[in-house]
């Protein structure tokens, strides 16, 4: 198993650092999947995570000018590593004005992801900073749990409002109740509701717009029959999910920068699926309904 990659472009490095920061806020421990074309940060829906799952994907050629990997075997040309997300983001943070950043898989006493940074300095010699991040190699037999989650057929699909606004609203609501209802309809309306014995608070977002079906389902071919079913439905009918507010807040807190695209798919009483695009990096985040 081998992995070796290098970033020399400052903008790419900053973008990669931001992605890593976001992952660190979303998941304490996550899986890094390395394949010839992509890097994925994965959180699978174990009970330990409260049923939340995450799938983040980036095309390696958008970031690295050198990228070499050799997977577990020829047929399974992939590497799955488990690491503490914060270790990676902290290491990348020290690479602010780097001339070059190298990441490679090493084995120094135990398996590590070594991040090596060549920093610009005043003098002729550069400073070299190295971080050895301990990792765990995930065996082949566990890979099946770490595959891309299937996007379920949503009842409602809607573009999200400005995430910063959503976050400040949810932050205040958290003080009142842990149980939040997120509901939306095909008329561009999204509501966040909390309810206790004493008080009921609802925040209404309007005119958000609903994405067309081909955006929602991406490359999956659309069957015309189902399309007509959608049109028959009352556009004002709300699909809703009851979720743990803290999970939503964690997701929103991870979004430091406003994404290029942000939409939300609701499966009535089952789950809410957030689908974001940060420039060229896609992030999918699934929050299950409270049982």
């Amino acid at each position, binding site marked *: 198993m081998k992995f070796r990659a290098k970033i020399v472009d400052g903008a790419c490095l900053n973008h990669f650092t931001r992605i890593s920061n976001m992952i660190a806020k979303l998941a304490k421990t996550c899986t890094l999947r390395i394949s010839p074309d992509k890097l994925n940060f994965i959180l699978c829906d174990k009970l330990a995570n409260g049923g939340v799952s995450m799938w983040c994907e980036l095309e390696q050629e958008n970031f690295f000018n050198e990228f070499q990997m050799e997977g577990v075997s020829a047929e399974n040309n992939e590497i799955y590593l488990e690491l503490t997300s914060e270790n990676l983001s902290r290491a990348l943070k020290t690479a602010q004005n780097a001339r070059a950043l190298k990441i490679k898989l090493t084995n120094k006493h135990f398996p590590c992801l070594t991040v090596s940074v060549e920093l610009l300095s005043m003098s*002729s010699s550069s*400073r070299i*900073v190295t*971080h*050895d991040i301990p990792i765990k190699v995930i065996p082949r037999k566990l890979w099946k749990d770490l595959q891309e989650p299937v996007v379920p057929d949503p009842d409602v699909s809607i573009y999200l409002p400005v995430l910063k606004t959503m976050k400040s609203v949810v932050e205040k609501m958290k003080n009142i109740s842990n149980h939040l209802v997120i509901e939306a309809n095909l008329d561009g309306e999204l509501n966040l509701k909390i309810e206790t014995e004493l008080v009921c608070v609802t925040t209404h977002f309007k005119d958000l717009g609903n994405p067309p079906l081909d955006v929602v389902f991406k490359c999956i071919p659309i069957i015309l029959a189902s399309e007509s079913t959608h049109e028959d439905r009352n556009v004002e009918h709300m699909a809703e999910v009851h979720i743990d507010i803290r999970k939503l807040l964690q997701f929103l807190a991870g979004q430091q920068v406003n994404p290029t695209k942000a939409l939300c798919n609701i499966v009535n009483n089952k789950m809410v699926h957030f689908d974001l695009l940060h420039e060229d990096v896609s992030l999918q985040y699934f929050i299950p309904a409270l049982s």
Partner: protein
Amino acid sequence: MAAMLKCVMSGSQVKVFGKAVQALSRISDEFWLDPSKKGLALRCVNSSRSAYGCVLFSPVFFQHYQWSALVKMSENELDTTLHLKCKLGMKSILPIFRCLNSLERNIEKCRIFTRSDKCKVVIQFFYRHGIKRTHNICFQESQPLQVIFDKNVCTNTLMIQPRLLADAIVLFTSSQEEVTLAVTPLNFCLKSSNEESMDLSNAVHSEMFVGSDEFDFFQIGMDTEITFCFKELKGILTFSEATHAPISIYFDFPGKPLALSIDDMLVEANFILATLADEQSRASSPQSLCLSQKRKRSDLIEKKAGKNVTGQALECISKKAAPRRLYPKETLTNISALENCGSPAMKRVDGDVSEVSESSVSNTEEVPGSLCLRKFSCMFFGAVSSDQQEHFNHPFDSLARASDSEEDMNNVCCRKEFNGSDAKYFCII
């Protein structure tokens, strides 16, 4: 006339003073105010006696500086000088010197003076429009400690801009306990020291290599790798933000203390940190102060028991002035605390010419399950006296030389005056 201190500072001087206090607070929860003709020294030592900090403000730093010591005449014409013995708690002082930037801007003058009759230190801030803020803080009567460390004979000396140190420090998390400094004549490396946490699968190991041309001064006598406490390193960085002088680092082999200094004419700061001794550099010579990690407790006790302490492996600072009592109570608490930590026995030989307290101090936080006590090298402390102009010119395998019996003879008379209680010397091994 009692021993006293009185000084006046401007707003910007208060900022430097406050930074000094903040820097020292990284080492200990208490510090001494120690005025002398050299200036006002703030001194502190940490609870495990493995780090010592001293910031000396020269008399010209202040707008006004006045101090005095009490001189006791005795028949033998051996006057004894009683300096101010003032120890303050950081908890009381830190809140007073908070928001240093706003203090610098808003105060016209700051006055600090002592009232020995009431064991109080008074700190007054004078603002515009006649507003005055006064703090009265009780101090504990306590003899300051001082470390004797000759920087000039260190094999390795570096001088760096604080910026470099700040850049290095961000590499490590605040949970990092120790860092290792590795130097060769050509380069410098600061790295996390994870010796014991090799088993912990979550610790990131970080290193930074810096070329020698980034240093203001780079003189390395021999390839060295020393390990010391990270938290205390941050202390001097705090202080360096107040001055713009470079930081000098003086060190030798592992086990021997490391000194970090800032000297900008008006203020001189010294932080002496113990370093981890490794087995290779363990003493074969009796003069050495380092003990290996693997030395068993029983060995240590046996070695010390029954031997005449003077002139032996443990060396003491010889004193020309009258010996003082140093924290008799505190010594005891230290001993008991250390014994509870499982350190080897403290050996105190009562009534001897030079008493030696020896302690093996384990690292501030022992890694659970670790069998070896990590030991830091020795530092010697002596009572501060008016004749502290002694200059030790020793070959550098020891910090201080053994006390000679002749010198102590001179002090016999004085000792009697103090009920035969002698200065106690602390050694940290």
